[in-house]
């Protein structure tokens, strides 16, 4: 019996040890002369169960296993060959019980249609999944106006976060008159806590390239750039290979599909600046300058890259395009809500059980996403809030868990949809600390052009820092709100205009926590080190010496089998003793 084994080899799989599993499978098959082949694939989305392999027989049921180690490889393959596949750690299977079958059924995979299924380095694999059929249809059978009309009808809105209708954006660029136009893919996924675009680029790069070909044809561009952050080396490698392969097949280059349409595509590596996710800053960076935003208008559709009309969309937006053209706008518009059509990819992370990449129809509630698809909380601490939209977004509290995931409903909470990072927090997370964390980020990443963004975020950070150190005063809360309003009003680009959101939403929903820091000098979550203290309860300590040995600064004294004591002057409050005590003899207060 011949069969195939696919190994999930995206960045997260590799970090969990997929490389070793792949090598072990390869060697085992070779050594035992087994009639089977091993293939690489992208992110299956279930990062919590990495490394993941899928065994696919020529006919019959394929089975996906999670948490595979090199030691388990022989066992799994032998059992499969004997017709009695292992039942343990099965995460996906067609005809039998598997832990994640239901999880996948709740999702609708349009953007992620191929990731985790095909080998991202094989254009043949992509072609088998109707790859480049949409581009062929668009170029041969449709006019640019028809494509734009189709995009408008689909209701697709920009997946980078702001949600501007894609069809409309293309129409502006199409109508601009110029001898030269550009199309750009924004793959500068800088939001901490977001990895949707990385997974799509690593797992299905051709879908983005095909979307760009269709977009370029619709607006009349003959040259394009993919601006990808340099922190994603695997995504860049897969993109480079995909572009070369597409050129060889004639999907890129001159006279594509026998038409008069020519299109050349380049990759530009980012150099580490969050502000370059803003479209005018991104264009400055492609031009080789400091990535500083500029005033709009003129909008990029009139004057963009090197002064030419330019259209910029995000990775996920482009990955939707071939599906829409292939299946039709009506089919796409069946998913989602009235004003937010289609699906959205989210990166689930933080204190959630099933962290990973998911795609759900717009309009699902946050509760369904977190508890049904994401499996609920990882720790036994209760849910406290969910952070959406990264440094531009906000924290949504438990009382708003029934909020629908669509652009307008999320905006009403004060957060934003953003690009799709969803970080779940439990009661062990301090909201003042989270606000400080994001402010620290935006303050670092502010390009410095606008005074309110440059200085205002710095002042806000100073206030937040003193609150977390127990030195805050009640007037600080008003100061924060005033500064926030002024930064929103006085900043040129999205970075500054949204930078205060994490502070404003936490002040709105978690004000008690700010007050506890200021008035009671307490951090209720036990995070802010200046406000916590570790102590050993004499009666409970058995003198096992574990804490004293683990303490990195030798702050714990005591003899064997005698109660130990923490020297508060030396203690750096790292919490290692607290975590390592098996007798619950250390308390945090």
């Amino acid at each position, binding site marked *: 019996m011949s069969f195939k084994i696919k190994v999930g080899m995206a*960045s*997260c799989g*590799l*970090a*969990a040890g997929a490389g070793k599993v792949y090598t072990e499978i390869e060697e085992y098959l070779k050594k035992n002369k087994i009639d089977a082949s091993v293939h690489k694939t992208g992110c299956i989305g279930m*990062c*919590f169960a*990495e490394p993941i392999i899928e065994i696919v027989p020529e006919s019959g049921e394929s089975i996906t296993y999670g948490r595979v180690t090199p030691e388990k490889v022989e066992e799994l393959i032998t059992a499969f060959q004997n017709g009695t596949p292992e039942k343990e750690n099965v995460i996906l299977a067609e005809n039998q019980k598997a832990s994640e079958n239901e999880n996948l059924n709740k999702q609708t995979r349009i953007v992620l249609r191929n990731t985790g299924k095909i080998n991202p380095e094989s254009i043949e694999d992509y072609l088998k999944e109707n790859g480049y059929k949409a581009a062929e249809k668009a170029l041969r059978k449709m006019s640019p106006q028809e494509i734009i009309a189709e995009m408008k009808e689909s209701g697709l809105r920009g997946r980078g976060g702001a949600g501007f209708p894609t069809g409309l954006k293309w129409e502006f660029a199409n109508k601009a008159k110029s001898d030269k136009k550009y199309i750009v893919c924004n793959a500068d*996924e*800088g*939001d*901490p*806590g*977001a*990895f949707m675009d*990385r997974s799509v680029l690593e797992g299905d790069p051709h879908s983005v390239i095909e979307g760009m070909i269709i977009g370029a044809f619709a607006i009349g561009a003959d040259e394009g750039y993919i601006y990808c952050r*340099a*922190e*994603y*080396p695997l995504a860049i490698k897969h993109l480079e290979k995909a572009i070369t392969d597409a050129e060889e097949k004639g999907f890129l280059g001159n006279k594509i599909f026998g038409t008069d349409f020519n299109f050349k595509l380049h990759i*530009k*590596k*980012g*150099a*580490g*600046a*969050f502000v370059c996710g803003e479209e005018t800053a991104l264009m400055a*960076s*492609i*031009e*080789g*300058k*400091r*990535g500083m935003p500029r005033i709009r208008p003129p909008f990029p559709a009139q004057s963009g890259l*090197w002064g030419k009309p330019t259209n910029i969309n995000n990775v996920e937006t482009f990955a939707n395009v071939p599906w829409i053209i292939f299946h039709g706008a009506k089919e796409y518009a069946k998913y989602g809500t009235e004003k937010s059509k289609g699906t959205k990819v989210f*990166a*689930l*992370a*933080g*204190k959630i059980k099933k*962290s*990973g990449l998911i795609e759900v129809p717009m309009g699902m509630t946050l509760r369904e996403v977190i508890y049904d698809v994401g499996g609920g909380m990882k720790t036994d601490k209760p849910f406290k809030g969910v*952070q959406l939209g*990264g440094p531009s977004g906000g924290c949504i509290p438990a009382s708003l868990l029934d909020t629908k995931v669509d652009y307008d409903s999320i905006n009403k909470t004060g957060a934003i949809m953003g690009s799709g*990072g969803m*970080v779940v*927090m439990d009661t062990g*997370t301090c909201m003042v600390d*989270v606000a400080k*964390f*994001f402010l620290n*980020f935006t303050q670092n*990443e502010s*390009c410095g052009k606008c005074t309110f963004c440059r200085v205002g975020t710095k002042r806000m950070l100073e206030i937040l820092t003193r609150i977390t150190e127990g030195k805050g005063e009640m007037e600080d809360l008003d100061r924060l709100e005033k500064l926030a309003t002024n930064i929103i009003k006085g900043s040129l680009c999205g970075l500054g205009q949204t930078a205060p959101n994490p502070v404003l939403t936490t002040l709105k929903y978690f004000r008690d926590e700010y007050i506890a820091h200021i008035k009671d000098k307490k951090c209720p979550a036990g995070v802010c080190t200046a406000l916590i203290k570790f102590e050993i309860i004499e009666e409970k300590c058995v003198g096992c010496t574990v804490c004293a040995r*683990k303490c*990195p600064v030798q702050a714990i004294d005591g003899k064997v089998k005698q109660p130990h004591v923490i020297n508060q002057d030396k203690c*750096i409050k*790292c*919490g*290692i003793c607290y975590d390592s005590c098996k007798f619950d003899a250390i308390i945090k207060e």
Partner: protein
Amino acid sequence: MIEHKKEVDEIINKYIGQKGNLIPLLQEVQQKEKYLSKETMRYIAEKTKISIADIYGVATFYTMFRLKPQGEHIIRVCKGTACHVSGANSILDAIKQELNLKGDEDTTSDMLFTIMEVACLGCCSLAPVIMVDDNTFGKLTPDSVRKIIKQIK
């Protein structure tokens, strides 16, 4: 001193005259030279006729560019949201202690390690995460990260 002058010349020749060439040019030069010294930047300015102010402006704008020599191994400590709420600070502290780095120091005196804090490595489901050169390590604890560093040493 420019250590790999021949290679640097080749890189300059490859990019000279191309529009938007400065960032990839500096990226490749840094890859060879490990960092951008004042001398290197002056040399590039002279050869490409791009003003030294523009080069310095770009080199200081993007976090990727380093103006100081760096260690043989680069440890990138992820400070993304998921890592932050999962204890990235204690990981950073543990690494600094293991490498005997105080305050703002980021490179060990034997030039073996440089630590960098990065915004997000995109492996949020494995938080907290670090990257040593090209290898990513996830689900870390202060103890396990110390072991990793010891092994590389």
